[in-house]
């Protein structure tokens, strides 16, 4: 028996679609057409309900610092840097980095806003401290 065609399984996959959007400076996440929950990292099937109907939406770009660590690195190799877990307001959590603050200014629970920046290795999604009054 031949399986019917399904758009979720045709063309470039979600990884490639995410990367293509990021390369244009856009931060997109998925949303399930069946259970309406947001999904990150990009997938073919919804990890909440199993449906094969994930569509793309622009992320609001706002979130909360869930946890962070300062990775110690010798100054000659670039010095210390932070690695952060960020809870997006839409629900998903992702690993990222908080730019523009020294380690002592990082506080779990602080409000963050996403930025897509240029690096020698291409575009990168990072976060900065959100302005006062943002949700």
């Amino acid at each position, binding site marked *: 028996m031949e399986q019917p065609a399904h758009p979720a399984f045709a063309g470039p996959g979600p990884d490639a679609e995410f990367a293509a959007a990021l390369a244009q400076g856009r931060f997109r996440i998925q949303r399930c057409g069946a259970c309406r929950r947001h999904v990150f990292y990009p997938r073919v099937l919804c990890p909440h309900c199993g449906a094969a109907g994930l569509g793309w939406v622009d992320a609001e770009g706002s979130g909360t610092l869930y946890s962070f*660590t300062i*990775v110690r690195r010798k100054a000659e190799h670039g010095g210390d840097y932070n*690695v952060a877990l960020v809870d997006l307001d839409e629900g998903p959590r992702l690993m990222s980095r908080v730019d523009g603050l020294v380690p002592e200014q990082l506080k779990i*629970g602080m409000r963050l806003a996403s930025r897509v920046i240029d690096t020698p290795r291409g575009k990168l999604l990072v976060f900065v401290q959100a302005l006062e009054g943002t949700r």
Partner: protein
Amino acid sequence: MSRNLRGATAIVGAGLGGAPMAPGRGALEIQAEAVYRALSDAGLSVRDVDGIFTGSSHHFMPALSTAEYLGIHPRFSDSTMIGGASFVGHLLPAALALRAGLCDVALICYGSNQGSGFGKLKSMSETQTYEAPYEPRYPVSSYALAAARHMHAYGTRREDLAEVAVAARKWAQLNPEAYARDDLTLEQVLNARMVSDPLSVLDCCLVTDGGGALILVRAERARDFPQPPVYVLGAAMAHWHRQISALPDITVTAAAESGPRAFAMAGLRPADVDVAELYDAFTINTILFLEDLGFCGKGEGGAFVRDGALAPGGRLPVNTNGGGLSCCHPGMYGIFLLIEAVRQLRGQAGARQVAGAEVALCHGNGGVLSSQVTALLGTAAAL
């Protein structure tokens, strides 16, 4: 019902190889020593083994490499790879295969020369596409993220983490086979070089060589061997994520699921455990697992470990060989949990023997708090 696996199999042989360091020796060579010692312990030879359960960071198809190297033609083999918890996890397929008659003598084994051969964690791990750009140090940064969140949520202190390291060292000082046996104080741990805050280098496990092997048979044969049998009373595994960013609450591991299921199979409670061997790749692990396995409530682990509670003479003997923090950690530590439990339950643990130990809990962890496997082992008296 999983309860019918309770006491169905027993460990009748256990051995270490190349521990804690074996310069000039390869992973299979170290493993072969462990297998030889375990078989000798059981009064068996390699010709008797017809089931192989193994995992490796050195060999892509470890059951094949192991069987060929040892000259075994197994009737059944399994090399499910769930990281360091694998070998505790192998208790389950080994018990199933033995009970089903797919094999009669099961060998669980591991060997690694990552300490002298590589000097750092040997890994075949694939790159995590959505984490790698931020350069977390693998795996320590993932554990650091959990520790930082636990400290934020529950007021756990770096001093509590240090208590775990100091207790492990005190046990190691009673174990002539342990690698790190110098005196260690809380201040030394707190003042050690930071690797990935809040974890210092002394919050991290050792990088050593080492191998281990266990021989399992069906319980009805277990008394036919030279050593007192150690029965598998319960075992369960759970895993919820691969990458730390995918663990919903990083202060709660899947041990909260594997633990209760293993206890249910065994018909036991945390209060019945005489000695606990908890996979301490990092100091935060021990605190998380004490909570998730029910030795204390969530968030109470920091308080639980204070004042030498896990050290010799404390409220609960934990990681009595010195653990991954002070005994050995050749990349995947799971099998060493089981070997130490066997020694304790046989009463063969020398100066570190926990008097009258009848029930031991072994808890394996793999990946970045990812795979969780809990096993309850017991003497004949615990059956």
